[in-house]
């Protein structure tokens, strides 16, 4: 059974790494979108 633990570890680490990266991308995208929105709002109120 020990062998299966290794296999399970390897596959879950791979998937976790990929999903963490995708989450990171999403988070950054959200942050940028927020910032853009802020800027737009600020521009509107300025005008």
């Amino acid at each position, binding site marked *: 059974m020990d*062998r299966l633990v290794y296999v399970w570890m390897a596959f879950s*680490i791979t998937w976790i*790494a990929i999903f963490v990266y995708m989450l990171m991308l999403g988070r950054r995208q959200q942050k940028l979108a927020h910032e853009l929105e802020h800027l737009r709002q600020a*521009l509107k109120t300025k005008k």
Partner: protein
Amino acid sequence: MKGSAYNLRGHNFIAWTTGFLMLASLYAIFLYAPLERHMLEVQKIFYIHVGAAWNAFFAFFIVFIASIIYLKTRNLKYDVLAAASAEVGLLFTTIVLLTGPIWARHSWNAWWTWEPRLTTTLILWFIYFAYFLVRSGVAEKARRAVLSAVFGIIGFLDVPIIYISVRWWGSHPTIDTTGGGLHPMMLHALIVTVLAFAFLYGYLCQKAMALENTRQELQDIKEKLRESI
């Protein structure tokens, strides 16, 4: 608008294909490919390990090509491509470096063996981490693109020399990691996995590029606003 809608469709296509291929590769790895005689199930790690490694290498090759094209054309599009590709490549090398030891632990009873390919991957990881340090160290867009392109070229040219030197250096007997000829069905599973990772690379690269584009757009707007103040 038309362009972006088209892009979105292309993006969706890649996303679905990636998902499908990932499932297919799981099927191929666990149900289709036969058990290896000596390592039994642990050999299954080999598929993702190699799939990630090949595509990491491919990603760095793209960084190299995009860097050269950038220096020739000065089109920031290629700088964005290089940056995104390096990021995904870094992710894949991380996967290689994480799965390698797990496999090594079972096969040779040690987490780390300084096996030439794994060691080269480790140095690659350092080089492309440095690539991002260079990027984050320059604020100005054009200069950042030039300097990181130069580093991307230098880094990639170093890879074969690193591999040779690490292989000669290894006082340990080089262990043939593929374990002799692959069973044809194992080869099929490997091909599917490599393909799945290739599509994953394309998908993530697109996402990272979109992100980088937004970031640069935002920076442009900010700079313009600052000028007008």
